[in-house]
């Protein structure tokens, strides 16, 4: 699968769909591509919409969440295997934490996104998709 066929849907794009209660734009993207999101972005949506009382009740938020999931977006999860593959840098002589994601200079949201989308042997997306995510966050945060 080449990078053309994988689209990273960033927080602003997800937020727009939730605000409009309309996920048709995601469905259009799907015609040609796989859409992936960061799990921390969808959890952040929940926090932000509740905190700011944006267009929402618990029921509406859950309904929109279901619609979004049913549109077929893919969320690379942070599971045990992901931790083993992505949380560490390993060479023959040393094990270190992956400094880019493992520091307090960036938000937990950014750390989780880096870990979820870091390229490893099971990733079906490539470096371009990872960089798209990284650049999006770097507009708001810095290492």
């Amino acid at each position: 699968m080449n990078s053309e066929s994988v689209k990273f849907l960033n927080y602003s794009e997800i937020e727009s769909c939730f605000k409009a209660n309309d996920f048709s734009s995601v469905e259009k993207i799907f015609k040609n591509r796989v859409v992936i999101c960061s799990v921390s972005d969808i959890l952040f949506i929940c926090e932000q919409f509740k905190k700011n009382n944006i267009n929402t009740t618990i029921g509406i938020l859950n309904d929109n969440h279901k619609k979004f999931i049913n549109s077929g977006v893919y969320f690379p999860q942070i599971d045990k295997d992901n931790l083993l593959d992505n949380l560490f840098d390993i060479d023959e002589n040393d094990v270190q934490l992956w400094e880019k994601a493992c520091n307090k200079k960036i938000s937990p949201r950014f750390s989780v996104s880096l870990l979820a989308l870091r390229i490893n042997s099971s990733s079906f997306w490539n470096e371009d998709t990872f960089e798209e995510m990284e650049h999006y966050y770097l507009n708001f945060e810095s290492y």
Partner: protein
Amino acid sequence: MSDIVLDTNVLADFIASYYKFEINVSGSFEEYKTISRFFAEKLNLINSNYKNYGVLQDGVIIASTFAFVEIARQFEKIANKRFSIIQFRAFIESPPDWFIIYSLNEELFAYLNLLPSYVVMPGGNSLTLEWADTIHVATALSRDEICLLATTDGRLVNIVDIQKRLYL
């Protein structure tokens, strides 16, 4: 018996205990920082019943992968030379069979949605709750209704709706 979800600080003390008391060899948990004597006894019961009889009737211990990420984000401060990066990775790779490393996934959305955005503290002031603070609560809620939460976070222990689930 109830399962117990650990928050980040309790998980760090648990991993430190795991190596300090050589649980992976034949040691026993003891009272240590956030691990109370009562909690240590519960851990020893789970461990011994699993070792001797292969049963999990006393529940399992659970931590979200996010708790491991939080430890990694401030490793020197939280681990504080109590365990090394190699030991940290070894624990993730081979935790005891009665310890579950629970995925951070989008299914937690519905459980986060059940939680308030703010919590009122005993002094009357309100503090905000962010998704990263409440992942451990959502993880407990996503399990069955008797899954408990071991947390020392002053905000989490004041969420009214989860009082019955607090363990420490």
